């Protein structure tokens, strides 16, 4: 089985516990760096060298991302720290696995995307069935009222059970996916399907992730999109910030002076802060927020916290002079806060507002912006938000 798709998490034969053990084994390392088993250790000294892999990525200024095309590198970066996202997948670059699955398994071993699609189809069918049952019950009640002039409780069968299905009682009548084939039918095919599927997918790293891998972990090289030569760290530092400078600035050749409120720096501060505390940080755009925090990673459990990054200017003048219109720099209205909080409490995530202070240029010289040393002048403060329901807090 593992030959086909070793990361497939829905093998029908494996028990949940063994599947969990397999997941823990595959995703054992929280970072790309690996510390091998020690061979010799004396007085706290040891000679084993930590193994730091070296991956390469291509910088893409248009999408503001870095592309890892080598599938080995992509798998490594995903499995050790959940960096990036497959450009043809929801998260893990599983496009080619999905293609192989589609050919070999005929819907037997499902990737997570396929499971979701199936679930959505079922849910739609359930809603249709329910609407039909409700309409039928209403029509029945209507007839009784017209004929006998009495009000009956619709949707109750003579034996007292409810006819209208609920999400708990409804069962798919017959699976619409033709997965009921016995595995024996598929077995003979397996030999023939040798013709390889070319992996067209790449892993797409956000610039925050890319900079973290390059600067903090030193395990990624970034190539220039045109010359294909590798960037130096200082070049990356400047390039990643320049990407965010609005294109309306007329002279692209004259570098505009670096600013503390560069969107790359602000979002990187937040990303780095939570990464350095051991969280797996992923984008939270689907939940109205900037980042989601996972304890060990998305394959283990759902994200626990949803982070809204709010930049706070120490000096309001800096905000007035800024060429960037930083998101969330203006104060929230209460209705917007309720919106975000509703969305996130619906999916069992705790909303966290993360305030990133932006050093005042009058206090800190912009010269420190020439290197990551400027990070020491920012600061991060969280405020955890929760609806307070007095009716449920009485004791």
């Amino acid at each position, binding site marked *: 089985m593992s030959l086909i798709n070793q990361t497939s998490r829905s093998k029908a034969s494996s028990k949940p516990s063994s599947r969990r053990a397999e997941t823990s084994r595959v995703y054992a390392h929280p*970072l790309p*760096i690996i*510390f091998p088993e*020690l061979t010799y*250790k004396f*007085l*706290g*000294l*040891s*000679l*084993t060298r*930590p193994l730091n892999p070296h991956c390469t990525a291509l910088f893409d200024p248009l999408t503001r991302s870095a592309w890892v095309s080598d599938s080995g590198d992509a798998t490594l970066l995903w499995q050790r720290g959940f960096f990036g996202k497959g450009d043809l997948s929801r998260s893990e670059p599983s496009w080619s696995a999905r293609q192989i699955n589609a050919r070999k398994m005929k819907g037997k071993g499902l990737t997570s995307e396929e499971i979701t699609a199936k679930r959505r189809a079922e849910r739609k069918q359930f809603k249709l069935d329910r609407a039909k049952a409700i309409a039928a019950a*209403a029509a029945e009640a*209507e007839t009784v*009222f017209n004929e006998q002039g*009495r*009000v009956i409780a619709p949707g109750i069968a003579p034996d007292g059970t409810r006819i209208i299905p609920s999400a708990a009682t409804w069962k798919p009548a017959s699976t619409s996916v033709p997965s009921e084939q016995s595995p024996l039918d598929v077995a003979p095919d397996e030999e023939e399907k040798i013709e390889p599927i070319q992996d067209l997918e790449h892993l797409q790293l956000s610039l925050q992730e890319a900079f973290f891998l390059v*600067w*903090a*972990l030193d395990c990624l090289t970034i190539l220039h999109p045109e010359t294909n030569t590798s960037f130096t760290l*200082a070049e990356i530092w400047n390039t990643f910030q320049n990407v965010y400078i609005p294109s309306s600035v007329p002279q692209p050749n004259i570098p505009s002076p670096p600013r503390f409120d560069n969107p790359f720096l602000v979002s990187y501060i937040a990303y*780095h*802060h*939570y*990464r*350095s*505390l*051991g969280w797996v940080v992923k984008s939270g755009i689907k939940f109205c927020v900037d980042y989601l925090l996972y*304890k060990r990673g998305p394959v283990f459990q759902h994200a*626990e916290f949803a982070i809204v990054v709010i930049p*706070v200017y120490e*000096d309001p003048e800096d905000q007035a002079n800024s060429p960037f219109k930083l998101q969330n720099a203006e104060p*929230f*209205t209460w*209705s917007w806060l*309720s919106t975000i909080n509703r969305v996130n409490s619906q999916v069992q995530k*705790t909303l966290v507002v993360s*305030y990133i*202070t932006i*050093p*005042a240029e*009058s*206090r800190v010289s912009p010269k420190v912006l020439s290197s*990551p*040393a400027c*990070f*020491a002048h*920012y*600061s*991060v*403060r969280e*405020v*955890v*938000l*929760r609806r*307070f329901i*007095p*009716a449920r807090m*009485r*004791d």
Partner: protein
Amino acid sequence: MDDVLERPRPQPATPTLDPAEEESSGSEDGGLDWTKLPKVGAVRPVIPKRGEKDFEPAAGGGSGLQAHVLDRARAAMFDALKADRAISSKSASYGIWCPQISRVHVTVARGIHFSAMGHSAARPTSIDNGSTKLQKRLELLPEEALYLIERGALFCWKDIQTDLTGLDDIEGAPMSVQQAFAEIIGKEDLTLEKYQVFAYLRRLGYVVTRTDPPSPSYPVPPPRVGSAPLSFYQRLSSIFSLFTASVLRFLRGSNNWWRPLGISRWIHHDKSYGKVFKSLRVIPAGHSVAPHSSRATPVAPSSPYKIFYNMYKPSTNFRKTIPPQPDFQVVVVNARTAFVPSLYELTELFNVLPEIPPPLPRKRGAPSVVQSSPVAVASPVHTSTFKHIFSWLLPSSTPQPVTSQPRPHPFAALKAGKKNIVIAAVDSGNISFFRFSQGAFEEWPTL
């Protein structure tokens, strides 16, 4: 709603309640189902249970059945509203609203309300012989008085500064609820929003008092103990830990900002993910240091974010004369005119709030296993530093002794935060309560 529909109509309201409708208990949303109310004549209105929503109007704009059910519900609503609100004369209280001092002087106090409302204040009272004397009397704050008037538990007359000699035997009428609202809202910092929050919490059984005493005679909780500045020992140890941290950082050369990852090739102790993450924590974080601001007063004096109410749970043993420390403190703002508080406003609020201990894990049959141990909540810093040093030197890899005291779950501690403030955002009568907690992610790394 159509006016035609709103006009009450005589309706033979004798519907037979069928069992199915009885069983359908209400979900949180959805309107009241007035048909669940008892019939007219039933004296006391009861909060009804909610019914189920119908699916949608039948094609062609409502059927006979739907119209019938609607009519029935509407008739029930009017019946319920028709019921007289009555109060036993034995439990009615009496008072006089004194606009000059914004208090209601309670002359007859009856009922359970006064165990949590009203305070005694000494006022000059004229005695029979013409002289005045300070006398203690029971007074209500504007919100307390308005709440009791609205409930029908207090008959309140207005104190008028007119000479009434010769009219002694004329009683006059007590203030109507409308008059009370008009007179009382706006007095003693009481906005309509603040009153709405007060009344809502009172109705749920909470005891609600003012945080800032409006007069010296108003009882307030005793000042908190334990907020004393750091002891000499604590300061010494914190300086020591800062010092060791910077020395270690220097020794490992991670003050080279182009290469933050400080893993020594030789020291075995460095070779763990915990150490890697720790060496990457270079960004200042946490609420222990106030955020910089170029302005002298980052919070405008007009900011609405000031703590207004102290709130006690119904279960809290509340004594009116010696109130305990509040369970929650509440800020009330108008959701249409105020934005969500800024970091500076929140910092100012947190500055006056007490730190609460992290929540303890729930007691279950088996002790819960907590994998990651918190860093900052551990014992004094210097001992742990020594422990670190020893563990570097000793080749044995003995596991750290597990403390028997249950540790809070990191998620629970992160969600609870260190300090809490409740903010009630009121939008024309709809109250949205939010709890803002001071987060401390930097104290609970996952690795």
